[in-house]
């Protein structure tokens, strides 16, 4: 057992502990991971024999696998990869005896991993995926973390904190374009239920697992269709943001009648999903309103109801909407994040006719109530608005949404058109989106280098999510279909062949890596140089020493005397030096290269001279 084994295994434990830090303790699987890590550490502490230490290494690998299931993002994945590398190095240290040091062990571990990777990739890419055995763990235990919640009560908020925390990122990998800034509304939740004070969503807070057979996977995106790839931070909600148009590309996503997109993917704390960019089948827009969309507790806000009663006499919903729009535009509303709390009696009356100060929640709430009072089916939608367009170096551009971009707006039902988005906040003076739009889309980009690094990292993260996390059963089937066409019954044979080929390649690669380092580098350099001279017909005679041979070479090529002398002197000095170091070897390589180059150059000029004077 090498002395490096114990430190390596403890280092692996440390890496795993760092990986455990970000886990939410509410998820039962993360409790399992915690428990396993603690048990592994205890086992490592008391392990004495070789057999026990091997078991520790295996437990560490299983631990890393559990972590990989819980934290599939880029940074934790890198950490897990490092932990796996270290665990393997620890295992190697157990077997290889006392000899090798850390560096050699890590190099060896990396070699073995690289050799094993082709087989693993073949199996990973080609083997058909299995569906989860049960829906255990779906959507459980995610604490509320975002600025959105299923209940919205703007009147009770005196001061809205602006959080710069990341909320989501959306990329358009297949060359798509983000909508213009004023059209970037990303809907998450629909609040239809109004009790005079707060707006609630009628949908369940997380999706129920589908009963019976899982839904068949939706067809993949057509070539010209374009894709939106979403990466969202953990939230307590099953509803996920989307643009309102497009078709979900995963069976886990479920589009509700109200236009909410519910995700019932199990487990993972951060979710990745894809939608087609444009689709004509956004049926939620034309789903007719129900009685709940007109529900209004009467008598709460008498002045509001009186105002709306005037519009009720207008013929159509469209005219009522125009009237309300005109009225809103005529009033001196002002956007602020610190409006102060509204009174408990007639809060919307106070907002509409007295303070006229508020943020998006106030405007959406008041406008929707006005429309309902005027007899127009209306509802409040919350989600995100805007977002900064980031173009990382050499990557796919993405829209970066922060919690501060959380927004609420209204939707009203217009006969013959369906649900139309109305954003009353845009009519208020000092609307942040209008301001940032005026200042240009990049107004938030003025951060320091740290922001820049973060943006690049997120660009990598998007690529990771697209290529790695996005590889699921459907992608796998698409790949197999592309490779084999209609001969998919040959898949078994193909997998076996590919495994055999990559096994041979791995073994060959390991052998090559092992041979490459064989032999004395100084000697190898000398032999390389001697071969170059041998090609010119000069080989050392039997028993001839290097300096004597060098003299012979100088007589033939007088121009070479400089580099030749330097090389021979350095070779002799290194050969008989006490401890030949890496610097000396590098120097030898440099001198040898210079010598061969001048030999070639000398020959070329000689040939040229001969051609000129035949």
């Amino acid at each position, binding site marked *: 057992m090498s002395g490096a084994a114990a430190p390596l295994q403890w280092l692996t434990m440390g890496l795993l502990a760092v990986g455990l830090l970000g886990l939410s303790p509410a998820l039962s699987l993360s409790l399992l991971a915690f428990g396993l890590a603690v048990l592994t550490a205890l086992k490592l502490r008391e392990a004495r024999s070789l057999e026990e230490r091997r*078991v520790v290494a295996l437990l560490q690998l299983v631990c890393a696998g559990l972590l990989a299931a819980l934290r599939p993002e880029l940074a934790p994945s890198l950490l897990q990869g490092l932990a796996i590398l270290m665990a393997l190095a620890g295992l190697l240290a157990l077997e290889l005896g006392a000899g090798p040091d850390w560096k050699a062990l890590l190099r060896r571990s990396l070699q073995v991993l690289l050799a094993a990777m082709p087989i*693993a990739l073949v199996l990973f890419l080609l083997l058909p995926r299995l569906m989860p055995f049960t829906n255990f763990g779906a959507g459980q235990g995610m604490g509320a973390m975002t600025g959105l919640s299923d209940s919205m009560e703007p009147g009770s908020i005196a001061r809205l904190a602006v959080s710069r925390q990341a909320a989501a990122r959306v990329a358009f990998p297949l060359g798509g374009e983000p909508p213009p800034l004023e059209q970037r509304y990303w809907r998450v939740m629909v609040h239809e239920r109004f009790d005079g004070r707060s707006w609630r969503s009628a949908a369940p807070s997380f999706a129920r697992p589908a009963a019976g057979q899982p839904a068949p996977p939706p067809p993949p995106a057509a070539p010209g269709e374009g894709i939106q790839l979403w990466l969202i931070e953990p939230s307590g909600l099953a509803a996920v943001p989307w643009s309102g148009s497009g078709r979900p590309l995963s069976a886990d996503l479920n589009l509700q009648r109200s236009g909410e997109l519910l995700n019932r993917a199990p487990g993972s704390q951060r979710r990745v999903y894809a939608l087609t960019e444009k689709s004509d089948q956004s049926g939620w827009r034309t789903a007719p309103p129900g009685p709940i969309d007109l529900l209004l507790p009467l008598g709460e806000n008498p002045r509001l109801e009186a105002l709306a009663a005037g519009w009720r006499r207008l013929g159509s919903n469209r005219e009522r909407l125009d009237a309300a729009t005109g009225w809103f535009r005529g009033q001196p509303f002002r956007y602020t994040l610190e409006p102060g709390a509204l009174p408990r009696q007639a809060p919307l009356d106070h907002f509409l006719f007295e303070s006229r100060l508020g943020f998006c929640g106030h405007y959406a709430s008041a406008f929707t109530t006005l429309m309902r009072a005027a007899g127009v089916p209306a509802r409040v939608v919350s989600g995100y608005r805007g977002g900064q367009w980031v173009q990382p170096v050499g990557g796919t551009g993405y829209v970066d949404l922060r919690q501060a971009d959380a927004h609420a707006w209204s939707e009203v039902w217009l006969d013959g058109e369906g649900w139309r988005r109305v954003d009353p906040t845009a009519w208020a003076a000092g609307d942040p989106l209008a301001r940032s739009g005026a200042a240009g889309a990049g107004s938030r980009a003025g951060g320091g280098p740290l922001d820049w690094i973060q943006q690049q990292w997120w660009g990598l993260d998007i690529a990771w999510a697209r290529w790695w996390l996005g590889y699921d059963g459907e992608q796998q089937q698409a790949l197999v279909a592309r490779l084999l066409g209609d001969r998919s019954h040959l898949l078994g044979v193909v997998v076996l062949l590919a495994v055999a080929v990559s096994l041979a390649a791995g073994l060959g690669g390991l*052998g090559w890596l092992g041979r490459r380092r064989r032999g004395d580098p100084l000697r190898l350099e000398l032999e390389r140089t001697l071969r170059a001279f041998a090609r010119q017909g000069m080989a050392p005679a039997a028993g001839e020493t290097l300096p004597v041979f060098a003299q012979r070479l100088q007589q033939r090529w007088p121009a070479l005397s400089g580099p030749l002398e330097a090389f021979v002197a350095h070779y002799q000095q290194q050969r008989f030096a006490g401890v030949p170091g890496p610097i000396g070897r590098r120097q030898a390589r440099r001198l040898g290269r210079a010598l061969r180059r001048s030999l070639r150059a000398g020959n070329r000029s000689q040939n040229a001279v001969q051609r000129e004077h035949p």
Partner: protein
Amino acid sequence: MDFGRPQQGERVRLRMRNLYILPTRFGWLWLSGTVLLQVIGVQMQSNGTLLLSFLMLSLFLLTLHLTHFNLQGVELGCGTPAPGFAGAPVPYPIRLRCPGRSEGVRLRLGGEASGPPLSLAAGEHELAVAWTPLARGWQRPGLLRIQTTAPLGLFCCWSRWHPETAQLIYPARRAGPVRLLAAGSAPLVGEPALASRQDGSDDWRDLAPHRPQDSPSRLAWKLLAQGRGEYAKRFLDRPEAAPLLAPEPGLPLETALEHLSERIWSWHGRGLSYGLELNGQTVAPGRGVLHRDRCLTALACCR
């Protein structure tokens, strides 16, 4: 892992036909860990876990070959074994010729515990493997087991071989009574170096010019103090009668031989002269390593 047909012969080349390989207990555990990760990966639909599980499976496939390559093509042979005593660990020389690098090689002779794992570079190696002979005479060391679990401990690859070269084993050394016979020959003059080191203060004989390698205690200080130059004193041992050792009558032959073996060893260590009489054959009294080995060989081969 220890079964399979042992190989015979002076030299053995390990190849497919005489190498055995099976997963170790840890290897089976590794496979069950792979299955566990596969289940977690499928259940959580996690690519990382699935890839790790496939990676562990492919490491399993890969180490099957790597472990086998450690011993594949290795040639085993014997060196010339030096004599040793029964009842104590005796080194037995094994020659290995490795075609490539062999890692984690453990050698084990007879029922001994196996040594530490060795990493052998390509080329010839001579390794001393300890074994404990129980009887005297020309002995073969029994079964040689060569095995390796490197690099990951998932597989154990092994082979078994009966080395043919016998090793001369002297009787075990055990203190006990020995019969002393009067010497049949005249006392002899010992090797000077040994004698003067043993009991050099016996008899002062003469002076010789001091050489730098002489001990300061030999320096004739009185002469030096008198300014007569540096001289070293030369001493001579008192000549003594060298006895003949013989087995103690009344004891079983093996026990008596063990006593003789111990006596010869200790007298040799003290630099005494001795002879040996055994079964009517006599080794004339003498001193020195060759003499000792001649006597011990006579003990080992006594019938």
